[in-house]
């Protein structure tokens, strides 16, 4: 029996410790306060494609948090100011070369900032750790237009489906636009990204999640949401945060509708988060960055198991 051994080398563990020191120094310099969010929550995200792990405690069910977002927004509403969290999060069923159901997320919030200011700070942090990376900014629309020749905001589900079916072997029936957009992003567009750091911004309105909506230069309603990639690997997801509680409630309910249609379990809406937003979530931008993936880039690891002391297969 050799499976008591860690999945990461001791050198990998050293690299992780060093990375955490660099990250904490970065935020200390910038006067962003480290906070600890609870791992258990009475509620969880309603995202149709994020599934939570449940835990039993004193006869009650809790959800292990899929990100510290809801707790951090309650802290923002309570006046915490600029804050970051470096901790474990859990996503049920996600395992693979780039996924482990338990992973480490670095999440931070900047009151008074917008998404573009925050992208610059993500850039500064990543370059601190990985100096010399080339950096590219492109909108979600440019990404699609350049490589697939269509406008992702205006194309119909039928047009996206026809394009996807030409290129990808999948059995699919009548699917919504987001299905085809996700399929094209993961199978066609991620591979087009260069080896450096790329920011993709202005996501489709239907993929706003917790970001506010705005009108772009072409008069199109877009979500002020961005993603960062290193090479073709997704690294971070950020928002210029939605601060309208009734709009947030409407989106949670739309998520629950979608979950119902897909036959997925129903999770309660986080009323404490909505109450905090209603009490006054300051205008802010926030981002979550996968530390394990950043470590993979830093050390050239080809699978997430190589950077985890014990991946899910060694538990």
């Amino acid at each position, binding site marked *: 029996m050799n499976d008591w051994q860690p999945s990461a080398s001791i050198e990998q563990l050293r690299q992780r410790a060093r990375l955490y020191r660099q990250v904490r120094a970065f935020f200390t310099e910038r006067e962003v306060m480290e906070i600890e969010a609870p791992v258990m929550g009475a509620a969880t995200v309603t*995202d149709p494609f994020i599934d939570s792990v449940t835990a039993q405690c004193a006869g009650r069910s809790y959800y292990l948090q899929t990100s510290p977002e809801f707790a951090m927004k309650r802290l923002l509403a309570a006046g915490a100011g600029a804050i970051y969290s470096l901790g474990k999060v859990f996503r049920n*069923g*996600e395992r693979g*070369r780039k996924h482990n159901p338990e992973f480490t997320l670095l999440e931070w919030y900047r009151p008074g900032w917008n998404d573009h200011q925050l992208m610059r700070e993500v850039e500064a942090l990543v370059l601190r750790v990985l100096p010399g990376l080339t950096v590219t900014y492109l909108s979600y629309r440019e990404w699609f237009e350049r490589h697939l020749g269509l406008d992702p905001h205006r194309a119909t589900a039928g047009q996206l489906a026809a394009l996807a079916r030409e290129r990808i072997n*999948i*059995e699919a029936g009548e699917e919504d636009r987001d299905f085809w957009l*996700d399929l094209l992003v993961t199978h066609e567009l991620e591979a087009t990204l260069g080896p450096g750091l790329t920011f993709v911004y202005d996501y489709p309105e239907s993929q706003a999640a917790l970001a506010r909506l705005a009108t772009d230069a072409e008069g199109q309603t877009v979500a002020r949401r961005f993603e960062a990639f290193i090479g073709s690997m*997704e690294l971070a*997801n950020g928002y210029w945060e939605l601060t309208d509680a009734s709009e947030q409630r409407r989106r949670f309910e739309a998520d629950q509708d979608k979950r119902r249609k*897909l036959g997925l379990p129903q999770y309660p809406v986080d009323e404490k988060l909505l109450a905090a937003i209603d009490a006054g979530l300051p205008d802010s931008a926030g981002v979550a960055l996968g530390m394990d993936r950043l470590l993979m880039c830093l050390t050239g690891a080809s699978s997430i198991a190589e950077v985890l002391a014990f991946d899910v297969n060694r538990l």
Partner: protein
Amino acid sequence: MATYSINDFRVGLKVMLDGDPCNIVENELVKPGKGQAFNRVKLRNLKTGRVWERTFRGSENLDGADVADLDMDFLYSDGEFWHFMEPTTFEQHQADKAAVGDAAKWLKEQDKCVITLFNGAPLAVTPPNHVELEVVETDPGLKGDTAQGGTKPATLSTGAVVKVPLFMNQGDVVRVDTRTGEYLGRASKD
């Protein structure tokens, strides 16, 4: 047979797809943080040997394929069927031409092969990686020519034709890699 959801997919899993048994040779979860999860899978069709890529999504399930690889001894061919025996149980199986395929030209009696059974019947035959076979026909050897470089075709006892060095003669035994069809060396006669 069991049913597998895409979370159960792993390399080596045998599943039924479009009516044929397939082996998963690559499996990657692709999932945008907020988006739909897909599994990008490469499968080998165990009947045709063809490998292709297919994408599956969260809700899909596949039936397992009743496929097993067993070591067996090759007994003989009667022209229509190739007969094999499990060395521990002495149970015999007969494989037809479609199952034996290209392996036929490497099969020598008593050699150990891997037989892939699908629903209990031979689906594919994998010969040993290395076989030793007698040369039954080739141009006469050039005496003293052991220099590197020159080769000539030689027909082996099983009908396979391989390139051998010029000094080889009829009746010599050669060692051949069945995966590449390459001559590896001269083997001593028993």
